C-alpha cells in the first residue's frame, strides 16, 4: 500500500460525504387533503310555514323548499356528536333555486373547509328565490310598522317572507335538528346574492336581534340610487318596458304587461310589485272546513289608484284574482303613489332605523364589482356609503372584485370564489 493511501482514502470519503449530504430528500411538498367533513345535505327540507305561504302563487302544497347542510359534528351519533352549531342562511338571486349555492360548489367547499379547520362547522340553509314571478325580494307581509300602509296582511300572495326568514325558519330548523342550532345572535348569519342580498339585509333589519353577520354580493340595495351613482331601479323602468316593446304604449297595451322567462326585468318588477304594491293589500280568509283545512278568501282591501294597475293574475284554485301595481307608467316614469309610498318605504335606507341602531354589532361583508349589471354596483356603493357614513358609521368589510378579461363579473360568475370568503367571514364572526 502506498505511504499516503490512508490520507487519500480519507479525502475520497470526505468528498463522498459532502456529496451525499447535499442530496437530502425534501419530498415534493404537495398538499395533502386530510379528509372531508362527513356531514351532508338534508335535501328534503321542504316545510309548510302556514299561514305564511297559504296564498302564495303556484304553491298549492304551501311548501318552501330548502337545501340544508348539516355538518358532521351536529349529526347524531355514531356519525356525529349532536353538537349545536352556528347557523347560516343563504338567499339565492332571481332564478336561483334551493340548489343554487350547492351548484356553485358550496357543498364541497363546506366539506373541505370544515375538515381542514378553515371554518368552524355550521349548519347552512339555502333558500330559493321563488320562481313564480322572479322572486319577491324575499319580502311579503308588509312593513307592519309603517303607518302609511293599509293595515297588515296575514298571507300575501308572495308568501309572508318577513315572518319566515329570520323567524319561523329558525324555529323550524331548531325543531328538525333537535336543537342543534346555537341560539344567539352572534351564532347566526345570513347572506345573499343579487335579490338575495336585499333579502338578507331586509331580514336582518326587520329581525334586528336575530343575525350577527351578513355577507352579500351586489344587489338592489338602494332603489333610488344616489347622486353620482345613478338612479337605481328607476333606470331599469325603460328597460323593463322595452323587453315587451311597451315603452310609450297606450293604456290598454300597457295593461298587458306580462311575465315571461324571456323578460327577466319584467319578471323582477312583477314579483316585487306583488310584494310591495299588490292590488289586494289585505286578505280576509277563513277556514271553511276545519277538518280539511279548506281556506277561502271572503274579501280583500285594495289600492284604489288604477293608473299602473295590471290586472289578470289568479292564484291557486282560480277562485280569486290578484292584481298588482307597477311603480312606473307606460312612459317609464315614476308613479309616485306607488313608488314613493309603497316601494321606497321598503328601500333598505328606509328600513334602517336611525334611532335603534339595528345593525349595531353586526359584522357586514359586501362584495362589489363595477362590472355588475342592473345598476347593482351603483346601488351597492350607495348602500355602503349609507352604512359607513354618519349617522350610522357601521364598520363594513368591502370586497372589491372584477372578472378576468373576457369574463366580466356581471352577475354571479365568481360566486365560487366569493363563497369561500363569505364562509370564512361568517365563521370568524361566529367566534369561538
Amino acid at each position: 500500500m502506498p505511504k499516503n493511501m490512508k490520507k487519500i482514502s480519507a479525502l475520497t470519503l470526505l468528498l463522498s460525504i459532502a456529496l451525499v449530504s447535499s442530496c437530502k430528500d425534501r419530498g415534493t411538498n404537495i398538499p395533502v387533503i386530510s379528509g372531508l367533513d362527513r356531514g351532508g345535505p338534508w335535501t328534503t327540507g321542504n316545510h309548510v310555514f302556514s299561514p305564511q305561504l297559504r296564498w302564495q302563487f303556484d304553491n298549492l302544497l304551501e311548501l318552501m323548499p330548502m337545501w340544508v347542510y348539516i355538518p358532521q359534528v351536529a349529526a347524531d351519533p355514531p356519525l356525529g356528536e349532536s353538537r349545536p352549531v352556528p347557523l347560516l342562511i343563504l338567499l339565492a338571486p332571481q332564478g336561483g333555486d334551493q340548489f343554487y349555492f350547492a351548484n356553485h360548489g358550496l357543498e364541497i367547499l363546506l366539506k373541505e373547509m370544515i375538515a381542514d379547520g378553515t371554518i368552524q362547522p355550521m349548519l347552512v340553509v339555502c333558500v330559493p328565490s321563488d320562481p313564480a314571478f322572479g322572486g319577491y325580494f324575499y319580502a311579503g307581509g308588509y312593513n307592519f310598522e309603517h303607518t302609511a300602509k293599509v293595515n297588515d296582511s296575514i298571507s300575501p300572495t308572495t308568501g309572508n317572507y318577513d315572518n319566515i326568514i329570520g323567524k319561523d325558519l329558525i324555529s323550524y330548523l331548531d325543531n328538525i335538528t333537535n336543537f342543534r342550532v346555537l341560539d344567539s345572535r352572534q351564532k347566526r348569519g345570513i347572506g345573499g346574492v343579487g335579490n338575495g342580498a336585499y333579502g338578507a339585509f331586509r331580514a336582518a333589519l326587520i329581525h334586528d336581534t336575530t343575525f350577527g353577520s351578513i355577507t352579500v354580493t351586489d344587489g338592489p340595495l338602494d332603489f333610488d340610487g344616489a347622486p353620482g351613482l345613478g338612479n337605481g331601479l328607476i333606470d331599469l323602468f325603460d328597460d323593463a318596458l322595452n323587453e315587451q316593446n311597451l315603452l310609450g304604449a297606450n293604456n290598454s297595451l300597457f295593461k298587458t304587461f306580462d311575465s315571461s322567462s324571456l323578460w327577466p326585468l319584467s319578471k323582477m318588477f312583477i314579483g316585487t310589485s306583488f310584494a310591495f304594491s299588490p292590488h289586494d293589500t289585505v286578505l280576509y280568509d277563513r277556514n271553511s272546513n276545519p277538518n280539511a283545512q279548506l281556506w277561502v278568501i271572503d274579501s280583500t282591501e285594495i289600492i284604489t289608484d288604477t293608473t299602473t294597475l295590471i290586472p289578470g293574475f289568479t292564484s291557486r284554485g282560480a277562485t280569486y284574482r290578484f292584481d298588482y301595481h307597477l311603480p312606473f307608467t307606460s312612459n317609464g316614469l315614476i308613479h309616485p303613489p306607488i313608488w314613493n309610498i309603497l316601494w321606497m318605504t321598503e328601500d333598505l335606507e328606509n328600513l334602517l332605523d336611525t334611532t335603534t341602531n339595528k345593525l349595531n354589532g353586526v359584522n357586514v361583508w359586501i362584495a362589489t364589482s363595477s362590472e355588475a349589471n342592473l345598476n347593482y354596483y351603483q346601488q351597492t356603493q350607495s348602500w355602503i356609503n349609507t352604512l359607513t357614513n354618519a349617522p350610522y358609521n357601521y364598520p363594513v368589510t368591502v370586497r372589491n372584485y372584477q372578472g378576468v378579461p373576457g369574463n366580466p363579473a356581471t352577475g354571479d360568475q365568481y360566486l365560487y370564489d366569493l363563497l369561500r370568503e363569505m364562509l370564512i367571514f361568517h365563521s370568524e364572526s361566529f367566534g369561538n
Partner: protein
Amino acid sequence: MKFICVVLFSLLVLTTGVWAGGFENNNVGLKATALGGAFRALADDWTAAYYNPAAYALIPDNQFGGNAAFNHYRNELIPNYRRISPTDAFETGFFNDRSIYNPHEILSNPSGGLVLRAPLAGETVFGFSIYQPFDYNITWTLFRPLTAYSNGYKFPGDQYQTNLDVVAFQLSAGREFKEEQLYLGLGLELLRADLIFTEITFRDNPMPAPFDDRPYELIPEWTKSDGYGWGFGVRGGLLWKPTERVNVGITAHLPFDINISGDSSNLNFYLPDVADTAALRAAGYTIGTIGFLYASGAQINALADFETKLQLPPSAGIGVAFDVTEKLTVALDAQYMLWSQFEGFNFEYGNFSQISRLVDTSLLVDAADTTYTRDWVTQNTSHPVDWENSGRAMLGAQFQATDLFTLYAGGSIDQSPARNATQFTPNFVDTGDKLGLSGGILFHINEWDFGIASSYTSYPELTIPAIDSDGDGVDDSFPGTYKADTYETVLSFIYRF
C-alpha cells in the same frame, strides 16, 4: 499541513460545478466535469470525441473508458398561477404560494468510448464513443382541479415532465497535420433522441353561461407524448500548439434536426361536473347532447400517433490550455450556442386509434356534436419557447499532486438561453445565468485511471410574472418563483493498452 490544504481545497470545490444552458449536457467524463468544462485544449482521453476530436491525435495509447454520471436536479417552484383580473387573482387549482419540489431522483447518465491507434491511414487515430450531448429530465406535480360541483379528479403525478435524451453514437478520427503543431479531428454522429413530454394546458369551455361559470370556465387538458427519432450530426475540431506549453483548441458542432414520433400520445380532458342536472335539462342538455357531455364530469381520453421536431442548436467553442509548471495546467474555454434554433415543441397528432366512447356517435345523438367534439379533442398542441443564443466561459486547473493522483478544479459562467423568455414553463427550468464550480480527483494505478468528480451549479432565483399577451385569459407562461440547483457526480475509469 499539506493534507489539510488538500482537504480544504476539496471541500471548497465541492461547495460550488458546471451545468450547461438549455438542455445541453456539457459534462462528459470526469476530467471535463472537474475542470468546469474547460477541456477543448486538453482533451487527453476518449471524451475528446465530445470536446475536440482533433485531440485524438495526441492520445499516446489505445484506451477504453467509461463514466457513470449521477445527476440530481434540485428544483423548487412556488406557483403563482392564477386568473388575473384588474383587482383580483382567482385560483386555478395550482398549488400557489407553496414551495413545490421536483421528485427526489438521482438520475444516471452513462457514457463510454474506445480509442485505437490503428495503423490505418497513416497516423490517424480512430475512436468510437457513446455519450449524451443533450439531456434533460424534470417532473413536477403542481395541480389539482378545484373542487366544486361535487367532483374530484385523479390527476396523474407527472403533470409537467420533460425527459429528453439525445444519445450520440460517434465515430471519430484525429490526425496530425503539421508536426507537433496542428491537429485536426472529425466526428460523425448518429443521434438517437428519446422524448417524454407532458404538460397541462387549458381549453375554453364551449358551454354557455351558467355552465361555464367559475371554476369551470377552463377545461384542463393533460397530454403525454412518448416517442423517439434518429438524426445525424457532425463535430469538428482543431488543436494548435503554438508553443510547447500552450494548446489552443477550436471546435464546432452541427447537429441536424430530429423528427420525433410515437404511437402513444395520451390526450386527456377533464370535463366539468355540473351537479344541477335539473338546470341542464331545462336548458335542453339531456343525455346524448353535447351540453350534457361537457357538464358530465367525464374524462375524455384519446390515444394518437404524434410527430414533433427537435431542433438541436449548433455550437462553436475555443479553448486555451497553459502549462504553468510541470505539474500545474490551467485551461480557459469559451462556447457559443445557437439556442435560438430551438423553438420548443409542436405536437401534431394523427391516426387516433382510440377516443373515449363518450364522443362516439352511440352516445352523442347528433352527428354534428360528435364531429365538433372530435375536432375539439384532436387539436394539435404547441409548447413554444423563445430562447436566445447564449455564451459560456469556463476556467479549470489540473494539478498532478503525486504519481498516484491528480487533482482538478474548475468553474464556469453560463448564460441562460431563457434569460429574456416570456414563455417560461416548468418543462425547462433554466432560470438565468448560472455559476458552476467543480472538482475531482483521478487516481493512476498502472494502466488504470479511476476517480470521482463532482460539480454544483447555482441558478439564480427567477420570478415569472403573469403574462397574457393574446388576451385569452390564460397565461402564456407559468407564473411563479423558480429556484434551482444541480449536482452531478461522475465516477470514471480508463484502461490503457
